[in-house]
């Protein structure tokens, strides 16, 4: 599958934007500038970037507690996201949601959700809506390996299968459900095999290879758009940081951690693009620089934005 040069560069830019965002959040959180808790997506950028590059603006995504990458890949603006993380009035959700609850329906982001797997039935509802309205919109539903052991996964995927809903489920298998290794919580080597239980296709792909993700998710999305029903795509990946910021990750071995860092999807894609002649070293450095500047501006925007008024606590409960 040939991908236009512009799109390739765009995917690269999205990945760098996510990484730069997460690195910056890491720093600002450690400095005490961000309240609550945050779960970082660094290391998993290829999945969001590769998968979302297949989407139209009117398609939908549902996200997770580890959602910054999905939102950025779907078109979320880093300044408004950062403002939300800072609890400011100018954030996407006026400071009411924070890191785990960012939603912007206008650009197809139905919401990050802090209850594991809560996005799965929500994605089902969005896909059902598209089906009933007769559009060819699709819904991309991101969740982690831990979510596949929940009630919502089982009930949600079963319904999507019998109703042939236009959904692609993207499992980000980063090997740990918080601290619990996948192998401890489930007795199955490839989570994509769970697709058999619902009579739908299941694919496993290297989640650190952005082009592989793009292709597999792209095929699944094409199938969904044609009304042929859902697909389960398992992307094998790993986390750069801990489950949340502050997690000392004593449950991971040094070796596993180093291997994860070696599998970093960004230098890998950069190298590939340079080899393909799509990008020069200079172009790539420029993108890095632009993203650093974008994030400086985003942090400045967040810092300079006002906090919400205390009275706003009472607003937005009902329409």
């Amino acid at each position, binding site marked *: 599958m040939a991908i236009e040069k512009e799109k390739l560069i765009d995917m690269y830019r999205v990945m760098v934007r996510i990484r730069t965002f997460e690195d910056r959040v890491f720093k600002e959180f450690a400095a005490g500038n961000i309240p609550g808790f945050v779960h970082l997506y660094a290391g998993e950028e290829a999945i969001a970037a590769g998968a979302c590059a297949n989407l139209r603006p009117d398609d939908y995504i549902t996200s997770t507690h580890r959602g910054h990458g999905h939102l950025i890949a779907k078109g979320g603006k880093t300044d408004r996201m950062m403002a939300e993380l800072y609890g400011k009035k100018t954030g996407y959700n006026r400071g009411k949601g924070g890191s785990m*609850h960012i939603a912007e329906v206008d650009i197809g982001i139905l919401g990050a959700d802090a209850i594991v797997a809560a996005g799965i039935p929500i994605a089902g509802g969005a896909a059902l809506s598209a089906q009933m309205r007769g559009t060819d919109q699709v819904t991309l539903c991101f969740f982690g390996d*831990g979510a596949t052991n929940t009630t919502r996964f089982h009930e949600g995927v079963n319904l999507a299968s019998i109703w042939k809903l236009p959904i692609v489920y993207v499992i980000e298998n980063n090997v740990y459900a918080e601290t619990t290794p996948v192998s401890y919580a489930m007795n199955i080597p490839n989570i994509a095999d769970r697709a058999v239980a619902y009579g739908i296709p299941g694919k496993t792909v290297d989640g650190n290879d952005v082009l592989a993700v793009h292709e597999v998710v792209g095929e699944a999305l094409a199938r969904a758009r044609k009304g042929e029903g859902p697909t389960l795509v398992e992307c094998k990946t790993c986390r750069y940081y801990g489950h949340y910021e502050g997690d000392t990750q004593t449950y991971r071995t040094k070796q596993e951690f180093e291997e994860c860092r070696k599998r970093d999807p960004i230098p890998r894609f950069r190298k590939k693009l340079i080899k393909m002649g799509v990008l020069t070293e200079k172009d790539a450095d420029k993108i890095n620089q632009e993203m650093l500047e974008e994030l400086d501006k985003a942090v400045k925007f967040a810092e300079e934005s006002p906090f919400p008024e205390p009275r706003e*606590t009472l607003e937005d409960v009902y329409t």
Partner: protein
Amino acid sequence: MLKGVKVKEITYLQAITEAVDEEMARDPTVFLMGEDIRQWGAPLGEFKGLFEKYGGERVRDTAISETAMLGAAAGAAATGMRPIVHIMFSEFLGVCMSDIRCVLTKTRYMTGAKTKFPATIMSYSGAGVSAAGEHSTCPYGYMMAIPGLKIVVPSTPYDAKGLIKSAIREDNPVQVLYHQKLISDRLTGEVPEEEYTIPIGKADIKREGSDVTVVAIGLMVHRALSAAAKLQEKGISIEVVDPRTLAPLDKQAIIDSVKKTGRLVIMDEEPKTESASSEISAIVAEEALDFLDAPIKRVCAPDTPIPFSPVLEKAWMPDEEDLLKAVNEIV
């Protein structure tokens, strides 16, 4: 309370750990399951060290399967074990609510006492750490509406240790709701060196007074105590009653205090509607109305979800100022 016994100072978190540790050591049928129990001893560390001490059979990491955990706790309890199941944040109780409402708490009754369910559910409750809408709930009111369930809400290290030990020994299902802000604030307090338990169903007068009864729950106990100290300077004497157990509620302790003071304020970190404060108000209105010299006041959170931004969250949570205002309205 602690006169004449040898005491030590520990944190609220340590009190929780010690309670579970001591009961696991005492009774081999006690075991623990939950998410992130093995590596972290749960996200806030309250079970730290127990995996190393008791091994993976008795300290079990689970998949993210709250309904399976609750159902398995009921099954293990009915067959001779004493499971402790950690349903991390109170809002996650909703995920397995029908297993709590139907299996765990109704089956004994429906089977005409053929079974019993000595299971303990432990969860974080409470706001104040910017954990946003799904990780900050105090589910007191709606859990109180479940017949067959006992609920303890410790506000101090002493209460936490004594009540959790009793909860584990209790032959009925007990929900323990401990406040995450009391953990993150590293609240400390004295506990006896010797083993002790606190009976379930008994309130504690945290401060004696004669002008106004303040019934405060969980974290609110501390806010009530600090407001009471300020009011004392103005010559207003506050009695702070900590129910400690919400089900069965120590109605008598509350009524006795109201009989003495003639005034009641309830401080409860929940949206006001159908909160614990609703039930306490109704009880006092029903059973002690003649002793009231002023309307009952409730200091609760507004009927909204819990906001993230610290500014909004602070506005949402009942605080000392709100309590001072309520007291001033009735004295």
